[in-house]
């Protein structure tokens, strides 16, 4: 960790009015929850549908894309990363610091609203709110690691990330059984399933993969992406005008 790198990253990620734009999704999530609670009351099926489908299925991956790529992508695009790279700092330290800032941003803007949404919808019923908040936290960190790597590797990280988040996670991951085994959403849902415990099946908190599969895969993405991003950053090519 390097405090100065963290500070610069946070400023460019949240600076100006960007934080207001980032807050749009969690605000929509909370408004939706409030409306549903008022209209439909407290129904575990409906609540799980919203937490799993919208919060974990859409808000978390989207914020993962924005925070993960946003923590390093714009600097690489405009060349300002040169000010970090022309310093006696290890490249893995830069990557780890940016991952921490991106993850913290994503957690505050997606996992925390998920927790609040869960309480609004279901109170403390079957620990569903906490379960999804934990799943959202773990998924946020994993997404950030993956998308940070993507931003180091390609200039099209945002587009690829959005396609992954919207098409793979939301559509294919939701319906195609084979694809579900390679979905961060499913891996983190496995955590939620364990936290809810015995009543998980009844409440509809079910993952396509077992916890025994999910945890190693989550760790593999997190550690693998972070390691490889540090490596790639050592030999990143800065585009000059010449």
């Amino acid at each position: 960790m390097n405090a100065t790198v963290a500070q610069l990253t946070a400023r460019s990620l949240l600076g100006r009015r960007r934080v207001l734009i980032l807050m749009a999704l969690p605000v929509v999530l909370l408004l939706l929850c409030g409306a549903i609670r008022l209209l439909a009351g407290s129904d575990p099926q409906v609540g799980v549908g919203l937490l799993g489908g919208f919060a974990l299925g859409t808000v978390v991956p989207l914020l993962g894309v924005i925070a993960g790529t946003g923590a390093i992508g714009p600097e690489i695009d405009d060349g300002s990363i040169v000010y970090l790279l022309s310093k006696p700092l290890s490249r893995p330290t830069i990557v780890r610091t940016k991952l921490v800032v991106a993850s913290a941003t994503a957690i505050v803007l997606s996992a925390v609203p998920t927790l609040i949404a869960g309480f609004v919808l279901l109170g403390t019923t079957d620990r569903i709110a906490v379960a999804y908040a934990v799943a959202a936290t773990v998924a946020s960190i994993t997404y950030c690691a993956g998308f940070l790597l993507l931003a180091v590797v390609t200039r099209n990280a945002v587009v690829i990330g959005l396609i992954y988040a919207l098409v793979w996670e939301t559509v294919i991951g939701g319906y195609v059984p084979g694809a579900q085994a390679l979905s961060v959403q499913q891996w983190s849902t496995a955590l939620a399933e364990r936290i809810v415990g015995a009543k998980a099946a009844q409440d509809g908190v079910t993952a396509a993969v077992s916890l025994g599969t999910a945890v190693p895969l989550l760790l593999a993405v997190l550690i693998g992406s972070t390691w490889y991003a540090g490596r790639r950053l050592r030999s990143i090519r800065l585009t000059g005008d010449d």
Partner: protein
Amino acid sequence: MTAVVLQQVSRWFGNVVAVNDVTMTIGPGVTGLLGPNGAGKSTLIHMMAGFLAPSSGTVTLDGEPVWQNEQIYRRIGLVPEREAMYDVVTGRQFVLANAELHGLPDAAAAAARALATVEMTDAQDRDISTYSKGMKQRIKMATALVHDPPVLLLDEPFNGMDPRQRLQLIDLLRAMGAEGRTVLFSSHILEEVERLADSIQVMVAGRHAASGDFREIRRLMTERPHQYTVRSSDDRALAAAVIADGSTSGVELIKDGAAVAGSADLGAAGLQVQATDYARFIRLLPQVAARQGIRLYDVVPADESLESVFSYLVAR
């Protein structure tokens, strides 16, 4: 003594050779890296700064390789060509952040000193996004100087500067060179290099075309043959009169149907004159024309572009 040494360095991108077998040593004092756009100057500076691996050859700083050696940045200050900075902060915050990234013991004092050196103390608390191009350039300079490095690499530092800012930077870089630092800057403008550099390295089309002190290169450039394109009322008569004088080594009629309007000699669109002594030729031409009763329409130096000057140096 700190020296950047390039040994048979080449760099290619796919099929394109950006830098071709360059060997040079950049020592203390101010060195100008001169060459037209696209000559490979930025690629060369990126390799010296450790941001690009040479495809072959080695780049070392006092014997240490610079590629993938982060510790080298304790001794290198880099002023990049691109303008982008973390512009959501003030100039002072940004220079301070750079000092902290270097892990300097007293980052605040170092930042204040660097800001004073580039004369940005007055504007240091404004957001970088409000700065003019010249102010941004000076802040970039301050970030490169904040850790007091013995080597300073500047990529096109004069781009976009007004004359006053240019003079300030020239003075600053001269002072840096006089202190014994190794200062290298790239430019495609002859006059800048002439005013500032103690020694010059010329790059053309990826190759190291010439090196040495400025007077030497200047002499090569002025002694080269100059070409002029001349249009007149009687190109043939003028050609005969001009070649009779010793200041020219060749005259050629240009055939170009499209450009003959106004020319009495149909089929010729002007003359291409090769002048060996251009000062004399310029005095001679109007006198000859007046004597022969020939009207001059156009006298254009044909090869004054920097590219042709450089390619002359390469072909030599």
